């Protein structure tokens, strides 16, 4: 039977903050208090509230986990009684699978601790038969939030109705008990670790538009540093690098909006920050795919693959410590503050020659140029084309995507037209690139180890590299088809038409 405290967070609970002073039971019915329980329950989620975002709530009481969706319990399982965990740390279960879908590779940890006091009551008729049960659950500091959880028994609907009427209580207000309990505990679910989309009207001067993109991207990058230092999960580093890349890319894409020398110094600094984490990110990507890689080789090679990953895991521990130390260095802290200051104020960086050009005009020209450039690079693409050229196209596509992502409001039609084909291509190119990077990583490992690599490990490396090569070839074929769609004459024409000449919109 589900505990009343869990149902307190469900849709059937009634607000009991102001109960009837002396609830009198209907005639012939007798109220008996039953068990009283006081305990602490933890609300668990990922750092980005991924479970909450998926409409799920995970409770932990001791080592018992209960996953609820929209107020109804979906699954229960045992888990670690303290500390965070990943979904794959749990024994195989329905709860684990559901967490895997919602949390992905993010760590799940306590985001709030709630004090709960649950009191059960029974109502019996003249025969001594229980005809209605209910719980009164108090949550939060000093039991400030109190709900009534009716638990009617089958076949005794009339008695339940009469008892509820006598007990009083009101419909739950908007938000339910959990939202109010979290607010009471000073916790507010925040669904995204990414920056809020900046408001950029088409007529905004390019310099100001650029600041509005760069400033929040930098803020997000710095916010993720704590998670990297604590090594909560690998997504902090990923988000950090994405934010740095976005800030750096925006500065490059709108060159001319701000002082070139200043922009160059900032881009160099951001580039160095990102580069310092390259090895750690490579190791993360590889280790995240560990189970897939182990499963992809024959059983006989698995011990060698495991040994390989164990050594990579040890290297990651060292690399993470090195990155954390760099992020904690006083000079790094100073540098981040100096860079942020340049974009937080309009006078942080001197204006460039295109500072006052309306952002729509600046972006229109760049979108058209970038799209044409991709089409040109894609023109002679074939099976024999070196991977490097495909990589160059991927970079161009990423720049085009960033342009449209940052300044969509300035070129809404083009953003809409290109969104789907660009995303399709980017997904395929991204998968191709991941396979290539992992393959190169292995080959690099093999070359550096030379004859020192144990034979079974060398065979494992060779097998995995071969599998990744074949995988990459599959992705490459898919990418080529998506590229043809993105650079079709019809689409080029359609995008060009969606971008009216600059002097007609802003004479």
């Amino acid at each position: 039977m589900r505990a009343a405290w869990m149902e307190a967070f469900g849709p059937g609970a009634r607000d009991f903050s102001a109960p009837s002073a002396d609830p009198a039971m209907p005639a012939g019915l007798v109220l008996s208090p039953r068990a009283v329980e006081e305990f602490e329950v933890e609300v668990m989620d990922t750092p980005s509230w991924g479970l909450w975002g998926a409409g799920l709530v995970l409770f932990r009481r001791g080592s018992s986990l209960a996953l609820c969706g929209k107020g109804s319990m979906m699954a229960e399982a045992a888990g670690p009684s303290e500390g965070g965990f990943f979904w794959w740390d749990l024994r195989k279960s329905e709860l684990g699978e559901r967490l895997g879908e919602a949390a992905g590779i993010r760590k799940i940890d306590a985001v709030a601790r709630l004090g709960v006091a649950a009191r059960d009551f029974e109502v019996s008729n003249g025969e001594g038969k229980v005809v209605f049960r209910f719980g009164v659950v108090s949550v939060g500091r000093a039991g400030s939030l109190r709900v009534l959880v009716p638990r009617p028994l089958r076949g005794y609907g009339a008695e339940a109705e009469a008892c509820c009427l006598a007990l009083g209580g009101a419909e739950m207000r908007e938000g339910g008990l959990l939202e109010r309990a979290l607010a009471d505990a000073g916790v507010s679910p925040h669904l995204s670790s990414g920056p809020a989309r900046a408001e950029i009207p088409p007529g905004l001067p390019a310099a100001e538009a650029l600041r509005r993109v760069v400033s929040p991207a930098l803020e997000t990058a710095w916010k993720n540093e704590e998670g990297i230092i604590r090594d909560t999960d690998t997504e902090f580093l990923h988000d950090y690098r994405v934010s740095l890349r976005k800030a750096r890319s925006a500065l490059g894409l709108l060159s001319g909006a701000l002082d070139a020398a200043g922009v160059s110094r900032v881009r160099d600094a951001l580039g160095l920050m990102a580069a310092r984490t390259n090895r750690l990110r490579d190791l993360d990507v590889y280790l995240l795919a560990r189970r897939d890689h182990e499963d992809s080789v024959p059983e006989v090679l698995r011990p060698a693959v495991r040994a390989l990953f164990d050594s990579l895991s040890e290297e990651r521990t060292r690399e993470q410590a090195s990155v954390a130390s760099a992020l904690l260095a006083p000079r790094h802290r100073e540098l981040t503050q100096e860079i942020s200051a340049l974009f937080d104020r309009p006078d942080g960086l001197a204006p460039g020659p295109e500072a006052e050009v309306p952002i729509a005009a600046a972006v229109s020209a760049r979108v058209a140029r970038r799209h044409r450039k991709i089409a040109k690079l894609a023109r002679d693409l074939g099976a024999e084309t070196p991977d490097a050229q495909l990589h160059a196209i991927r970079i161009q596509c990423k720049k085009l995507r960033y342009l449209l992502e940052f300044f969509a409001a300035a070129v809404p039609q083009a953003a809409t037209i290109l969104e789907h084909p660009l995303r399709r291509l980017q997904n395929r190119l991204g998968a191709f690139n991941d396979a290539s990077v992992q393959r190169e990583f292995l080959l690099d490992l093999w070359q550096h180890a030379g004859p020192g690599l144990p034979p079974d490990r060398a065979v494992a490396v060779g097998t995995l590299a071969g599998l990744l090569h074949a995988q990459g070839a599959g992705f490459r074929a898919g990418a080529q088809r998506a590229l043809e769609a993105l650079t079709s004459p019809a689409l080029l024409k359609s995008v060009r038409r969606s971008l009216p000449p600059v002097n007609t919109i802003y004479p």
Partner: protein
Amino acid sequence: MKIFASYSIKGGVGKTSLSVNLSYAFRCAGLQTLLVDLDPQGAATFYFRVSSTEKFPLKGDGLSVSGLREAIRESDYSGLDILPASPSYRKFDIALDGMRKSRKQLRFLMDELASDYDAVVLDCPPGLTLLSENVFRASDLLLVPVIPTVLSSRTLAQAYEFFAGHDLPAGVIRPFFSMVQSSHRMHHDLMATLPAEFPAFLKTAVPHAASVEKMGLHRSPIQTFDPDCPAARAYAALSLEVLALRGQS
């Protein structure tokens, strides 16, 4: 869903005690269980403090499914529901006799509950009637309490004869010794010889116990107020034995 009937031609052999305690044991084993009190005396209904109902209609064109669902009452033990006895069951045979496929009406009715319950226990009135034949055709196991006496064993033989004469599968009949007093010489002797004559006898035997009679005072299954008495342990063992027979252990 598996259907277990507590049945005997003879009265006073421990059918209702079996139904009540077996249902409770199934519920404790995590099975969503329904106890159907088919006996107009309503003793099983009484033991669970549920009121008898007049609502469950016996119609001429078949038993009413909606009426059945409305009549079900949740017991004080979650996971165990009761379909209370009704005085109208006195006319069960007459009602069934007027229906098409009169020997399978109970089966049809139980099929409607297949998605609601893991186990159904039928507490049957004594006798060999049209309702009894419905029970035979609906049940996966027919549990027959047999007091180790001559009369009781004679009624078991009568049940087997009826099955043979009506092309019913005798394999569903699983007798067990009930109300056993080991100090009685006759009980001792018959328990040694009857299983040879009827090899389907279950291994578990339920002893005669004062606690069983106290169920009427407590109005609850024996396991709730005297869980360590020999009879309570025997019913628990019996529940495991019959679940194992039907692959639900």
